């Protein structure tokens, strides 16, 4: 079923069950967000996608990533009041993660050069303060990859995201999806010819059967074969060798 409503006065439509943020972006409206990803259930952690929604004559400011589209609502994505609220949210996030470049850039766009707040969260070690605790890494790991290696840990000012108890997590398959989706690019993946290092683990690699180059981690292959539709035969050869072998085969066909 299709739902019709307006965004900034423009009539839009979307499938029932979709959220306002995805719909707005599909139509080219810019709404900032850090914690949202289409592949997972909306979570509303970063609060940056605040918009003004009028429903049945009542206006309210709300996050739109977790607001389901409704017939006849009208959405406003930008106004001085909305910008002011987003700036405040950014100031709070900046206090939490002052070392995160994407946060600093976004804050600058909203006129926030520094934060008046002081983070109270205890950060282990001397590492950079760049996690905004949105949990996108953990949500992708659980909902999509289905590896369940990451989670929120601790409470209150000791809250963090990572492996349980901060120890190397056995369920991690080393797919590095967490690093790909992290809005502050804080998750370190180190690839060498012999292994992939991530979350304190060292994962063995599948070697290309013809040239020996790394293809993927063994754990990721085993996991993909177990829960996915393709057998392990698909994950044996590296990209370069696969191309080379096909080009050789095509050359024979042509001559």
């Amino acid at each position, binding site marked *: 079923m299709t739902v019709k409503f307006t965004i900034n006065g423009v009539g839009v439509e979307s499938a029932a069950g979709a959220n306002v943020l995805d719909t707005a972006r599909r139509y080219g409206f810019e709404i900032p967000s850090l914690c949202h990803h289409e592949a997972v259930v909306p979570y509303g952690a970063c609060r940056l996608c605040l918009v003004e929604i009028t429903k049945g004559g009542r206006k309210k400011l709300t996050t739109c990533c977790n607001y389901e589209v409704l017939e006849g609502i009208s959405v406003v994505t930008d106004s001085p009041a909305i910008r002011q609220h987003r700036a405040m949210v950014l100031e709070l996030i900046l206090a939490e993660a002052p070392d995160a470049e994407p946060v600093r850039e976004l804050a600058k766009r909203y006129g926030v050069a520094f934060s008046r707040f002081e983070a109270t969260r205890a950060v282990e070690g001397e590492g950079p303060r760049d996690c905004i605790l949105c949990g996108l890494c953990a949500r992708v790991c659980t909902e999509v990859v289905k590896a369940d290696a990451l989670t929120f840990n601790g409470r209150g000012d000791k809250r963090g995201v990572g492996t349980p108890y901060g120890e190397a997590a056995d369920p991690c398959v080393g797919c590095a999806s967490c690093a790909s989706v992290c809005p502050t690019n804080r998750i370190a993946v180190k690839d060498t010819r012999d292994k992939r290092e991530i979350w304190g683990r060292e994962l063995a690699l599948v070697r290309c059967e013809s040239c020996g180059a790394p293809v993927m981690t063994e754990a990721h292959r085993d996991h993909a074969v177990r829960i996915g539709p393709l057998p392990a035969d698909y994950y044996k050869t590296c990209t370069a060798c696969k191309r080379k072998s096909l*080009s050789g085969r095509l050359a024979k066909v042509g001559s």
Partner: protein
Amino acid sequence: MENLYVIIPRNCTGCRTCELACAMVKGHDGALGQSRIRVFPTGVDKYVQMNCLQCAEAACAKACPTQALVRNERTRAVELDAGKCIGCALCEAACPFGHIRFDRASAKPLKCDLCGGEPACAKFCPHRALEMR
């Protein structure tokens, strides 16, 4: 069939204009490494242009855990829905022909989408080695 992307290796001189066209149109900085199409030498003065075959049963789309690779019914290309991609690189590993490469910098795969039906590589090929028929 209409709108068929045809690769004719016999006509290819290895000038790699297609790679440049692809990199300029689809890459984020015009660097050749961003090109989806690659020209492979296969002998003396012989070349094969290697590009995604848009398989009817695409292994990349099957492997994708988020259905981020979907068939465009109009162009019949398997296209990347970047918003759904989580950057796990399974598509790269699964493609039997090595036509998808994963770009670590953007955390997304480089995948030919036939430029929405008008591929730049075919348009710029000076030797009619790539054509839309």
